[in-house]
């Protein structure tokens, strides 16, 4: 049985009647990683938010989303709210704006843990420190007492991942988790995501336009363009034999940039490709 099953998901703008996501269907098995690839404006983020029913009111959606054989659309907002966080956890693109700027990080963290797991402060703190240490954040206690603007983007991104670790969700929806980060933090964040998968066997939906990242972690790839799914399949086979011209184009542009780099590096043993 699939963990998540999406059938004919369609999202459109209520005012202009413009369809943003056309009949999209996919399934996600327990513990697998599905990547959604596409350029900006291809509807990948909207698809993700539609899964958690977090799109703005002006966007309507229909189609069926089954989570463990439970239809998500018929749930009330209150029931859905319980699902988010506990069953779905979102890691957003921009760490800088994902936290409340007017209060300390820990207020947000404890509130989330209290709502979903009903932990008291002591326990939340202990668990959070553990989780933050596992994502390489030293001085976890000190960090929790800071405001979001005092921390860098990479740190906030890792705090979001730490929170996901503590919540132990069934599905992590990571919407461009590495785009805003520099090279070293990118590598660390990917390492953490891989670790979460191993340790907790949770499924990941990864949205990215960086094919390097996708190839690194995903089991399956879904290529989207203008709201339509053009291609889906196992990561190695899609990258080796792309069927659609658009996928070929994406792969070609990416490899043009890195080929030059790899050529430079071939002479050394610094990079093992």
């Amino acid at each position, binding site marked *: 049985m699939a963990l998540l099953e999406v059938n004919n998901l369609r999202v459109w703008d209520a005012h202009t009647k413009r369809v943003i996501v056309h009949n999209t269907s996919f399934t996600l098995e327990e513990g697998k990683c599905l990547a959604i690839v596409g*350029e*900006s*404006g291809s509807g990948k983020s909207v698809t993700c938010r539609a899964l958690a029913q977090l799109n703005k009111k002006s966007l309507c959606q229909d189609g069926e989303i089954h989570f463990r054989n439970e239809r998500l659309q018929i749930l009330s907002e209150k029931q859905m709210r319980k699902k988010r966080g506990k069953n779905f956890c979102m890691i957003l693109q921009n760490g800088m704006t994902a936290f409340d700027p007017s209060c300390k990080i820990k207020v947000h963290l404890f509130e989330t843990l209290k709502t979903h797991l009903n932990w008291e402060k002591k326990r939340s703190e202990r668990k959070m420190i553990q989780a933050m240490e596992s994502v390489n954040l030293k001085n976890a206690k000190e960090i929790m007492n800071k405001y979001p603007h005092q921390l*860098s*983007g*990479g740190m906030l991104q890792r705090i979001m991942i730490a929170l996901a670790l503590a919540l132990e969700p069934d599905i992590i929806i990571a919407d461009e988790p590495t*785009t805003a*980060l*520099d*090279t*070293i*933090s*990118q*590598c*660390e964040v*990917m390492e953490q995501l891989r670790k979460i998968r191993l340790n907790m066997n949770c499924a990941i939906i990864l949205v990215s*336009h*960086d*094919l*390097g*990242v996708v*190839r*690194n972690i995903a089991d399956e790839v879904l290529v989207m363009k203008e709201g339509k799914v053009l291609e889906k399949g196992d990561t190695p086979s899609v990258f080796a034999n792309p069927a659609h011209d658009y996928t070929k*184009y*994406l792969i070609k*542009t*990416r*490899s*043009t*940039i*890195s080929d*030059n*780099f*790899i050529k*430079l*590096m*071939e*002479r*050394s043993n*610094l*990079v093992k*490709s």
Partner: protein
Amino acid sequence: MLKVDHVDKSYNNNGFFKSSSRKILEDVSFECSQGECLGIIGESGSGKSTLGRLLIGIERPERGSIMINGESIFKRKNRKSKISVVFQDYRSSINPFFTVEDAILEPLRAINIEENLAVIIDKLLIQVGLSPSYKHKYPHELSGGEAQRVCIARAISTEPSYILFDEAISSLDVSIQLQILDLLKELKNSYKMGYIFITHDIQAATYICDRLLIFKDGRVQETIPTKDLHLVESPYAKKLLKNLILF
């Protein structure tokens, strides 16, 4: 010739009880010759954007000097139409009340050129790969790649000797990144401009730059020609290369 000589910069941290100053740049020196493309690579928070602001003369260092063709960059007269900049955030770098035409004309009006402006605009737009019909559009009607092209057209309009790119391609899609990089290569050949390319993306930097400057915690770790990148010596540069997620 752009010459940066022993530059220091720190910002005051006005605390509630005591104010302290935080050093952002420490003893930074490098040169960039005419027509060269220099990449400045560093992680976020390493002070590369601060360095960028010093290079275009909108902030002053505490110590040291920055010279362009032998004259100080901090005099408005000396830097006028010699250096331009393209920023990362393409959404906020064009005035939303300006059309594309107004935006590109702004620097040209400032230097009072006599030629026919309408002709120049069309030429610039074609050069950056946009159709001249774009000149009546407003910034919100443009996609990210198009807006960045308009910013580049604006930057090259005064034919400067240097253009500074502060993470100019980082927020674009990979396929658009490649288009912009190819465009920049082309423009460099026709205008003989120098580029200073600030980025955290070492792969994109190797695609376009002749020389790379690796920057960490406000200090220059290493300067190396791109073709010798595999010979880097500093531990930080090695770590940077090791941590890359390759395609």
